[in-house]
């Protein structure tokens, strides 16, 4: 006697547990029950759990009966001829989906050779232990598992052909790779997922060598001439939007070219791209500070009396302009309305991104690197046959990370390029290394993939032979153009008078606690003071009470809130943050008195 639960609800009991389970399974396989039903036997609790609800992760497996997989050569022929489909296989009870529960009762063989008498299922492919992106890593079975994870994570950040209707979309931070290619070294997942419809990298000629140290510590060197011919070039899209908000009292924003008497009017030059409707015209090349969408808003804080006031009629300028350090081309303009029915204007900006120093590249093996330099092809080392690499990768990145697949792809794609074919590198089912090497040898190259190289600058032969081949390289979305920032002067925080923080606010780079310690340890006392001068303040201090006094420049008088007008004031230099501290101490009802003595 065993309890039966359906979707975790008790429904009854059965006498013969095993025959009940096999009965349910048979009925599912012959179509009497829905294929979405899964049944699990829990021996310890002596109960059966039947699930048919949503939200279970299930995966397909080939059913094995009497040590023979039900999927036969006949099925495969029918499938390739298009006579039957996947759904037919499920209907015929050849393949079924198991959920996590039912998997507990199944014995799954990796392949036919592993089938034993009590095997219940067989994997469709042993590579199905990975997910889609991980299966896109070529020669994955030659790697440490963590490298596969890193490799698949990198691929998710790559630029490619993300959507065929990109020109109609308003995606935030969209990137589009120019001239994307299908990888020479592919896996079966590339075919299954129609990777050629949305590729995200390019096949590059890669040399594994050092070159003046510009690729040390995970750097890569790019061939400047290749880049000028369009290698890894991409476009960056960013929408700018403005809506006509409605305020209380029937006031609304208006999108238009602001009048000159508007409060906060910039300069005529800033509005030069706007057309009559207050919106930029397409294909205008804009730079930082240029207005994209002109807009004015009603004045803030209208009190009753102000309505008759002349100044109340003055509207506020609230145009959308390019932020500090941004540039681009107005690509596409949309005028529409949002959910609340307000007029909404969106302008998509486009910017061509040519690879530059600091841009991030990766192969599909978790071997990411940052561009260290772009070298003209005349200076780059070249092979006997005149092959010049597009990218130079450092050999030091391989030894500790043990990404054998990286090396295999290099040699595999070289063979693929020479033979004019794609090389299969599906997980556990890849082409064999020996075969690839033999084919390379047959093509007239050294079978280990190395070639004699010459230094492009001197023309001298290099001492070592260079491991060179092709690789599918991806450009990642982290580009310096989005991140670079510097500042000499700029905005400060109101409260502390110290520089703002972060790129968006044009902030400074903080000289932190540990950096401060460096100055002290070097005894560079006065340098330290200068570095911390960002919030320097010279304040009048009342000599009588030692508190900060008030200096009224308009009326040209000084007074102390404690002692009144009849005081002597000393000017004391300190950081504004300290003045703030004194104020806060005072708020604790503690009297922080500054005792002043002459410095000299």
């Amino acid at each position: 006697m065993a309890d039966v639960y359906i979707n975790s609800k008790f429904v009854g009991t059965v006498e013969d547990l095993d025959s009940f389970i096999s009965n349910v399974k048979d009925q599912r396989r012959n179509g009497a029950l829905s294929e979405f039903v899964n049944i699990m036997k829990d021996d310890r609790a002596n109960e059966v759990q039947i699930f048919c609800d949503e939200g279970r992760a299930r995966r397909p497996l080939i059913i094995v009966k009497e040590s023979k997989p039900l999927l036969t050569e006949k099925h495969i022929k029918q499938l390739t001829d298009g006579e039957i489909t996947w759904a037919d296989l499920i209907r015929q009870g050849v393949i079924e989906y198991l959920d996590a529960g039912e998997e507990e009762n199944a014995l799954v063989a990796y392949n036919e050779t592993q089938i034993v008498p009590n095997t219940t299922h067989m994997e469709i492919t042993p590579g199905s232990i990975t997910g889609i992106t991980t299966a896109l890593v070529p020669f994955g079975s030659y790697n440490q598992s963590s490298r596969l994870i890193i490799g698949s994570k990198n691929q998710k950040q790559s630029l490619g052909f993300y959507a065929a209707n990109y020109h109609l979309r308003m995606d935030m931070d969209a990137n589009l790779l120019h001239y994307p290619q299908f990888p020479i070294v592919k896996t079966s997942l590339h075919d299954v997922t129609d990777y050629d419809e949305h590729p995200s990298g390019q096949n590059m000629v890669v040399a594994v060598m050092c070159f003046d140290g510009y690729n040390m510590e995970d750097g890569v060197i790019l061939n400047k001439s290749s880049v000028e011919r369009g290698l890894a070039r991409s476009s960056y899209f960013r929408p700018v939007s403005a809506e006509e908000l409605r305020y209380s009292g029937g006031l609304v924003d208006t999108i238009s070219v602001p009048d000159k008497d508007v409060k906060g009017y910039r300069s005529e030059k800033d509005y030069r791209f706007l057309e009559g409707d207050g919106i930029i015209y397409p294909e205008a090349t804009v730079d930082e500070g240029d207005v994209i969408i002109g807009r004015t808003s009603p004045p803030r804080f209208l009190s009753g009396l102000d309505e008759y006031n002349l100044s109340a009629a003055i509207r506020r300028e609230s145009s959308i302009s390019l932020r500090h350090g941004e540039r681009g081309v107005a690509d596409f303009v949309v005028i529409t309305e949002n959910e609340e029915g307000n007029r909404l204007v969106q302008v998509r900006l486009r910017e061509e991104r040519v690879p530059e120093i600091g841009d991030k590249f990766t192969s599909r093996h978790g071997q990411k690197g940052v561009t260290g330099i772009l070298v003209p092809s005349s200076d780059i080392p070249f092979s006997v046959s005149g092959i010049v690499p597009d990218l130079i990768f450092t050999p030091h990145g391989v030894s500790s990370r043990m990404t054998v697949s990286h090396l295999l792809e290099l040699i595999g794609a070289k063979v693929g390029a020479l033979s004019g074919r794609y090389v299969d590198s599906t997980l556990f089912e890849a082409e064999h290394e020996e075969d690839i090497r033999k084919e390379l040898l047959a093509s007239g190259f050294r079978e280990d993939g190395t070639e004699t190289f010459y230094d492009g600058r001197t023309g001298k032969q290099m001492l070592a032979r260079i491991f060179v081949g092709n690789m599918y390289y991806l450009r990642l979305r982290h580009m310096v153009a989005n991140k670079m920032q510097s500042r000499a002067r700029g905005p400060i925080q109101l409260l502390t008078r110290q520089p703002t923080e972060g790129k968006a606010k044009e902030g400074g780079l903080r000289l932190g606690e540990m950096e401060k310690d460096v100055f002290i340890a070097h005894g560079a006392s006065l340098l330290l003071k200068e570095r911390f001068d960002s919030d320097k303040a010279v304040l009048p201090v009342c000599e009588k009470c030692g508190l900060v006094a008030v200096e009224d420049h308009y009326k040209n008088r000084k007074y102390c809130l404690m002692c009144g007008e009849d005081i002597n004031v000393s000017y004391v230099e300190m950081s504004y943050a300290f003045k703030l501290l004194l104020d806060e101490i005072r708020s604790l009802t503690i009297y922080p008195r500054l005792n002043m003595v002459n410095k000299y």
Partner: protein
Amino acid sequence: MKADNEKLIESYSDKLPPSVLEEIKVGVPGTISKEKLIQILDRSILVYKNAKVHAGECVGLVSAESIGEPGTQMTLNTFHFAGVAEMNVTTGLPRIIEVFDSRKIISTPSMEVFLNSKINQDVEKVRQLASSIKETRFGELVSEYSLNIFEQTLGIKLNSEIIADKGLTTKDIVKLIKAKVKNFEVESKSDEIIFTQKSKSEDIKDLYGIKEKLKEIKIKGLKGIVQVLPVKRGEEYIILTSGTNLKDVLALPEVDGTRTVSNDIHEVREVFGIEAARQAIINEVYKVVESQGLNINIRHVMLVSDLMCVGGVVKGITRYGVVSEKASVLARASFETPLKHLINAALEGEIDNLTSVVENVMINQPVPIGTGLPGLVTKMK
């Protein structure tokens, strides 16, 4: 070495430390001319002066960073040697924190008891001594308790094997117990002791109470020494203990008091004084540093140890210890619990003379270190 050369070297004793002079004395050839020896000595003075810390050098911060930076590489986990004949003593970062915080109760107090040459080669004698040091409590000797509620008696059966092993007799034990237990009649039969309540009170609690109290009575050994382990260290046998009692251990005639150490800094200070405690801190910290394979100059540790011991008592690098002694209110407030320090300063009307580093960084004035230290003195006419 000619006598006048030796005299010459000695005449430099006010300019060079004895160790350097000794090195020169041993190092130079005996046939050296007087002029050359003077040259060597003068040059030595120059090198010696250069090697000294310069005025205005920020030794404290350099020490702090020099210990702190390798500290980040230290393994947080202490290693455990299961089954190996070593005691499990806290090492690594937890131990360093413990020492620098100057904790009163440390997580693994232990001693290394060295023995004098009479017995330190004899394993058997060392083992005997070890087991005689170990604190034995009455509870360990008991095999059975039987509480008779009707007659209000507590019968205790002793484990004769253990007693024999410890070299005790039931008689001794009863004697010891009688001295400690009041209000109870104590009778003893071979290996059983029976306690009968004198005043036939109805309260059973007293019987339970006496049972728990009895367990804790010390029968033998030195108080606090929980475990002993004789091990071979080099050519001799020493005793490692878990739990410390330095004072009593040193009183034993077999113990070599010149080498025996405890890892409890406070105990070392009580027994040997502050100078020993200072050295104990250095030793304990450096032991950890070396065990982790780090390279910290011992002078940094010495400086910290000096700072902790300078007041004659061991103070930790905590807000209650060394930091609380800082002269500046602002410096103390910037460490921990700022409000407490500000309020107390306000109550006392404390004046901050801004003489140290932290407070000057706060108000953005030159810190009195390095280039900020010297001032200019002029005579005004």
